């Protein structure tokens, strides 16, 4: 009972928090030069990691799908099937996990520290709104950089798959030619939608958890922990919901399943 009340309070709080940020954004309160600065702070520094991870995720998926296709002598479909599975599900989820660790933890720890050292209170007393001054630039920077990093990471998964195919003797060109015959625009749209939504999730959860941290360095630790767990759970949950929604819609419009 207590736990479910806490859950409702957290989600209610996050929705109100997002709405406040949206309202301030529509009131043109975002300092976009600070957003750009923050994108460099949190986004650009994660580029190398995302590229590496993307390559490996693509390769891992190619290994796995190849194992399954071999038995049926269907390795010609490797490119399409492994790319589809990666783009639709595994890629966005795994890369979002990584980003929630890197970008999310950084942001929540930074904000929580600002809170417990009274920096946010100091801003309030000096006549500014910390949501406008501190949160808005960070939330947009995290949304934008997570989204872009996810797209870059997903493109790298395709390269990873191609590279691995070449290693195991599936002709890289065949692998690539097979991709468009299986991967539909729908799959690409789904992976873009997921990337955007995961970016929003990471941004809202991390900023919310950091902003409301209380109680010294213990509070910072608790906030970052809670931020990680909430991010991971919500990414999984929304991946499930979006995949369900997508297959229902694909049924409805009869556009095939891959």
């Amino acid at each position, binding site marked *: 009972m207590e736990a479910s009340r806490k859950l409702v309070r957290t989600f209610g709080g996050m929705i109100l928090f997002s709405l406040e940020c949206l309202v301030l954004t529509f009131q043109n309160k975002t300092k976009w030069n600070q957003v750009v600065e923050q994108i460099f702070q949190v986004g650009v520094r994660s580029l190398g990691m995302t590229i590496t991870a993307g390559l490996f995720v693509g390769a891992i998926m190619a290994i796995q799908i190849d194992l399954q296709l071999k038995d049926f002598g269907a390795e010609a479909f490797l490119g399409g099937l492994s790319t589809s599975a990666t783009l639709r599900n595994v890629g966005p989820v795994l890369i979002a996990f990584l980003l929630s660790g890197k970008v999310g933890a950084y942001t929540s720890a930074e904000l929580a520290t600002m809170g417990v050292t009274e*920096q946010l*209170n*100091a801003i*309030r*007393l000096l*006549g500014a709104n910390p949501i406008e001054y501190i949160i808005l630039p960070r939330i947009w920077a995290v949304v934008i950089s997570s989204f872009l990093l996810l797209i870059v990471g997903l493109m790298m998964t395709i390269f990873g798959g191609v590279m691995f195919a070449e290693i195991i003797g599936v002709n890289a060109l065949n692998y690539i030619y097979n991709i468009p015959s299986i991967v539909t625009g729908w799959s690409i749209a789904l992976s873009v939608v997921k990337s955007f939504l995961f970016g929003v999730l990471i941004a809202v959860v991390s900023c919310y958890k950091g902003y409301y941290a209380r109680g010294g360095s213990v509070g910072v630790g608790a906030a970052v922990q809670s931020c990680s767990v909430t991010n991971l759970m919500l990414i999984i949950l929304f991946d499930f919901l979006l995949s369900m929604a997508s297959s229902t819609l694909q049924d409805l419009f009869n556009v095939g399943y891959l």
Partner: protein
Amino acid sequence: MIVIEKLSKSFTNLKVLNEISFSVPSGECLFVLGKSGVGKSVLLKHIVGLETPDSGSVIVGNKKVDVSDIVILSQIRKQCGLVFQFPALLDSVTVFENISFGLRARGLLKNSKEIEIRVKEKLSLVGLDESIVEKYPSQLSYGTQKRVSIARTLAVEPEYLLFDEPTTGMDPIATTGLNQLIKKLTAQLKITTVVVSHDIKSALAVADRIILLENGKIVFDGTPEKFKSTTVKLAQEFQMGF
């Protein structure tokens, strides 16, 4: 004038403030003394609406502090400058940007030349050299950060100055400098000052009046002279300690 009336505040099972009442007339320098954890910081935060009372009220000037009334609250915060116990400097921006933050957020000074003059003026007031303006807080010692934090509060030139343990962690020379500054501000500019502290030496040197807190209650309220001769046990302990 600050009026605190029957202010009570508890955290979970801990009653920190228990129906505290006192008032600070304009131009007075009041020291609120008490041991660590007695609720000095909590008391100060009520004056600027960073804590909400369980019961009782706080009046600043002629306005009642009410966190649900954003307009009144922001007017009160405009009049009050609070120097936090810890420096609370924004660590992502420079000393200059920290000190000028309130000036810009409030739109008090528009001209960048004026802002620069104001920043340098307040820096020298707290005994700091203007060469540190481009440094980041993490590059400064704790005592210097604290002085920058005081300069930041002074920059917006508030009518009420609230200090939370201003001299804790400062060297003796800086402490003397700060005490003289507080004295000067109250005497010349008729600023109303509330200092919460356990620094009895500074209190005796600077205060017009001393209040002593213990277990959520006021156990002494009077001039420094009276404080020296009172029979209140905690007041005597405080003086023996120094």
